[in-house]
Structures are given as structure tokens and as C-alpha cells.
């Protein structure tokens, strides 16, 4: 059972909301769509739901063309980032709504609603009014309503983004549990997010979107190890991967007249020339034998410190595993962990990665 998209495009005035999007999704899997705001994630979800029709291209589900099937006949469920519930109904009625609409038997409705409510941790909330609930609770109701249908495709559009930090963490943990039930073996779960951490945590396949296109589709591991372009690396890393220009010359990497180091072994096949190098913030460390940089900014975050340093035109952000305040302008000595260095061509494409990825 699968959802196949071929060449979906939606144009609006001069820009593409969806630009030639194709993918294939199979049941029992979680797919995370990650991208910046306005990358087209919501548009894609709404197209799959049937709320928007593509200008060109098509969708098939289980071999049937989705195009001819209107929204209300597709077996889908959707949870929005704004807490959307039916304001005039109680919690119980909200969750029961899709089943009532379908004509399910009263006893069956009751059974399923109670089950769904307990799955999301809202036992006993049946009689409450929506307005009386907190944001987190409202979103749980929306979630329960999406579960109760046992839909074949479940769409979640940044469902946790409007919750406060603690709640987000909590729900994220509960999430996998909620969707790991038997029923979900039969459905496709599509989750959109702008947060790379969230995407990685959910596991499953990731589709990276930018400007209406899917620029990479792969497992979370693959996306982490081998982002196929600088764009992907920017979207899927938090904190952002450091990207800086340099040259490969005579077996050395040259970032500036003062900063040179040997080629790491995984760069051996690369020709000389200009490249954009990538290095995650965690691969930067303080070392007395390193290169001289001066501090522009330091931010303590939890048990780590973000250090923004600079050497002439070269700016780097390092994530240091210590808690220390640096004063602006202080001189530090920085070491690059070249084993984790990426090389991208000037046009952005991945040329070499520490994990042996694509060429």
C-alpha cells in the first residue's frame, strides 16, 4: 500500500509553491518533511489531503488516482500547528465527530473514543469544553481525533511548534509511543517540521524541502551523514553547519594564508581547486596547538557553550563541551577535527563526506 507522487507542481503568480515533487511512501513508515518556513511543507500536506489541487502532476494511493477523490472521501487525518478543534463541541464530541460522520455504531464510537483519549493522556476529559483546555490539552484532543479514525494517511503539520518548550519535549517523547500501535502498521505517517532535532528524533525517512522542491529523500542517518548539498546541510543541522570557502592545494587544505592543514584521508580522491568546506560546530574545539581566532560572541546553553570566533574573513561557530564565559575580543586557539570535514563543490553539491557518502 503506498502513496506515490509524480511531478506535483503548484504555481502561484510568479513562484512555485510546489516544484516538480515526486516521492514514494509505503505503509507502516514515518516520513518527516523538513524545511524552512515557506519551503512548501504545508502546501504538500494540503495537496496530499486534497484541500489543494496540483496544477500539474498526480498522486496515486494504492494504485488509485487521488485526483478524482475529494477530500472527504479520502481516508486521511490531519493535525494542524494551530490547535484546531470544533469549538462548539465537547472533547468527547470532538473526538467522536469523524466516526459519527462515518455512521459508526454508537457503542463502537464510545469504545474508540475512550481508547483514543487514554492514548493521548486525556482520560476523563470527555465532558470538558474546548475553550477550557490549555494549548497542550487542545492539541492532544486534535491528536486523539486523528487517531480515532485509524486513517490510512496521517498528516501532522508542525503539531508541536505552538507549544511551550517543556510540553514539546514531553509530547515528542509520548509521540512515538502513541504511533507505535498496531493500527499504525497500516498507515503512513507524514510529519512536517522545521526543527532538525525533531526530525532526527522521529527516525524514519526524511524528505528535505526547499523552495517547493524535495532536495533529498533518505533515512535520517543518511541525511545526517551525507547531506547532498550545502542547502541540505543548512536545513538539517542545528546549530547550523559551519560552511567556509577554501582551496585544496598540494595535499593541503588552505583556508587562509595562516590556516592550513593536511588533507584528511577521505579527501584523497579530490582534485585541486576551490571548495566549500563544512564542519559541524561540535567538531570545533579549543586546543593549544590550534589556529588563532578572536572571540566575537559566546553564549552558554545548558551545559555547553557556543563560541563565535573569527579570523580575518573567516567566521566559525563552535559548540564546546564546557561552560565558560569568553570576553569579546579574547584570543583563543581553535582546532578543527578534520576527520569530520565535508567538502562541497562551489555549486553546493557534496563532493566528499566523512562517512563515505555520495560523490
Amino acid at each position, binding site marked *: 500500500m503506498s502513496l506515490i507522487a509524480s511531478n506535483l507542481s503548484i504555481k502561484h503568480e510568479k513562484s512555485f509553491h510546489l516544484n516538480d515533487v515526486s516521492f514514494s511512501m509505503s505503509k507502516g513508515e514515518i516520513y518527516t518533511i523538513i524545511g524552512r518556513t515557506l519551503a512548501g511543507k504545508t502546501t504538500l500536506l494540503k495537496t496530499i489531503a486534497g484541500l489543494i489541487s496540483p496544477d500539474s502532476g498526480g498522486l496515486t494511493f494504492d494504485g488509485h488516482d487521488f485526483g478524482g477523490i475529494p477530500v472527504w472521501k479520502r481516508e486521511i487525518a490531519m493535525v494542524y500547528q494551530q490547535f484546531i478543534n470544533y469549538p*462548539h463541541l465537547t472533547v468527547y464530541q470532538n473526538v467522536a465527530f469523524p466516526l459519527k460522520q462515518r455512521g459508526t455504531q454508537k457503542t463502537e464510537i464510545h469504545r474508540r473514543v475512550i481508547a483514543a483519549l487514554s492514548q493521548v493522556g486525556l482520560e476523563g476529559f470527555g465532558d470538558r469544553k474546548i475553550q477550557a483546555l490549555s494549548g497542550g490539552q487542545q492539541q492532544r484532543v486534535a491528536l486523539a481525533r486523528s487517531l480515532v479514525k485509524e486513517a490510512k494517511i496521517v498528516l501532522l503539520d508542525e503539531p508541536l511548534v505552538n507549544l511551550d518548550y517543556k510540553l514539546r519535549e514531553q509530547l515528542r517523547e509520548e509521540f512515538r509511543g502513541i504511533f507505535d500501535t498496531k493500527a499504525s502498521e497500516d498507515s503512513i505517517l507524514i510529519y512536517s517540521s522545521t526543527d532538525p532535532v525533531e526530525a532526527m528524533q522521529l527516525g524514519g525517512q526524511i524528505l528535505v524541502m526547499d523552495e517547493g522542491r524535495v532536495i533529498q529523500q533518505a533515512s535520517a542517518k543518511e541525511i545526517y551523514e551525507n547531506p547532498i548539498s550545502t542547502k541540505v546541510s543548512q536545513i538539517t543541522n542545528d546549530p547550523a553547519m559551519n560552511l567556509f570557502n577554501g582551496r585544496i592545494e598540494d595535499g593541503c587544505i588552505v583556508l587562509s594564508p595562516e590556516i592550513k592543514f593536511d588533507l584528511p584521508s577521505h579527501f584523497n580522491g579530490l582534485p585541486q581547486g576551490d571548495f566549500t568546506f563544512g564542519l559541524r560546530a561540535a567538531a570545533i574545539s579549543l586546543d593549544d596547538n590550534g589556529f588563532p581566532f578572536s572571540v566575537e560572541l559566546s553564549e552558554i546553553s545548558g551545559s555547553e557553550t557556543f563560541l563565535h570566533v573569527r579570523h580575518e574573513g573567516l567566521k566559525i561557530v563552535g559548540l564546546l563541551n564546557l561552560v565558560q564565559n569568553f570576553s569579546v575580543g579574547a584570543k583563543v586557539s581553535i582546532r578543527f577535527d578534520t576527520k569530520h570535514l565535508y567538502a562541497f563543490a562551489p555549486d553546493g553539491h557534496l563532493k566528499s563526506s566523512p562517512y563515505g557518502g555520495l560523490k
Partner: protein
Amino acid sequence: MSLFYSTLKYLVVTLWSMFVIAPFLWALTTSFKDFQSVTSGATYIPWVDFEPTLDGWRSLFKSPAQGGIAIVEPFFNSVMVTAAGSGISIILGTLAAYSLSRFTFRVGPIRNGDITFFFISQRIMPPVVLSIPFFIMLGKLGLLDTLFGLILVYVVLLMPIAVWIMVDFFNKVPVEIDETALIDGCNPYQAFFKVVLPNSVPGIIVAGMFCMIFGWTDFFFAFILTFTEVQLLPVAIVALNSSITPWWSLSAAALVSVAPLVVVAFIVERHLSKGNLSGALK
């Protein structure tokens, strides 16, 4: 808040209140007068300046032949026409407003905004302009001097109001709720009736209020389009405005005609405080 501002505040408010009440008070005393009390100069306080009588009030129930204004029938006619006109306008208007809020229309260069403008621009036309053609049209249809004919005309008058208020109201209801209803298996009609409509009750009440206000207070169309069979309240009252105007009957009738909408005023104020009226601006 200094004492100065405070006093000023109450002063202004009180002055205006007096201005508002003045005509009503005058009508009230006048309704208890008779020919003598009126024509001998302005008089104010009953029993002090003049002898009060109930003639004015009694005349409300006598027919013109007996020297009164039979107010009962015109009153009910007004109620009928206003209620029916408002009802139909709200039903048709709400449906149209929903579509204008949610869907995209494009017929050539005409888009949603233009259609909405078309509805609302009906208000620009003075009744005069429409009255002659309506006169002829209703005449041809044999609907002159009938309740039904007048109701039809009132629908034209009131639907724009319903559309204006409801479009703005619907725009404030997140479209995601409609979408969720669709996803939950409702077709667009069901989504509207089961989900959007129950949430729009405040808006409908407001639209209803305004329709009733503008319907009840119409004079001109009733004036032009009805004569003897059907008489609406305002017409019946103004008909008395001839050379020998029985001020007392007039005043009594005026007070009666105003009464129903005072209730409406209370309802409007309640909704106002609940914040249901914000918006409505193009």
C-alpha cells in the same frame, strides 16, 4: 483621573442623554393632551399645565373613520414584513457570504472582492431611485399593495447588510476548521451546516439585529408600494401628518412604534460588550 475630567465626563454624558430623551418626553406628555392643550401654546406637565386625557391612546384602536389610527394591523404588518424580509435575507446572505469568504471565484476579471462590493453597493442607491421601477415591476406582477411584494423588496434592501456582516464574521473563523470537517468526512455542505454555522451564531444574531433595525425603520418603500390593503406602521403614522394633525394620537403611535426596538437595543448592547461586533470594515 482628576476631578475636572470626571465632572466633564459625566456632564457631557448627561447632556447628551437629555438630548436623546427629549423628543420622547415631549411625545409622552403630548400623547395625553387634547386639542385644547395643544393649540393654546406649548404645555408640559400634566395636571399642572393641562388636563390629561387618554384620547390619544384610545385613538390608536379606532379606525381613521372614527378619528383614530387603527394601529394594531399596521403594527403586525410591519412585524411580518420585517421578520420575513430579515429572515430570507439572512439565509440567502449568510450562504453567499460563506462562499465569498471561503472560495475563490473568478469569472473573467470579476473576483470575490468585486462580488462582495456588488452586494454592498446596493446600499448606495437611494430608495427613490429604486421605487419607480419597483412600482412598475410589482404592478406588472400584481404584487403592489401586498405583503409578499414588499417582502421581496425588503430582501433587496437587507441582504447586502447580512452579506456585509457575515463575510467579515466568516473571515474571522479559521478556515482550518472547515478543512478539518472536510477531512473528517464532511462534504462542503455538511461542513458548513454542522461546523461553521453553529460557530457563527453570534454573527447571525448581529446580522439579524441590523436587518431588523433597517427593516422596521423603512418608510419610503412601504409608502410607495402599498396603499390600502396593506399598511405599515410608519406609513400609517405619517399619514396623519396633514394640516390638522392630531398631535396626541401621533405621539402615542410614535411611542408604540419605538417600543419593540428598544428591546433590540438591549440585545445589541449585550453583544457589544461581549466583543462580537468588532470589524466589518472593508
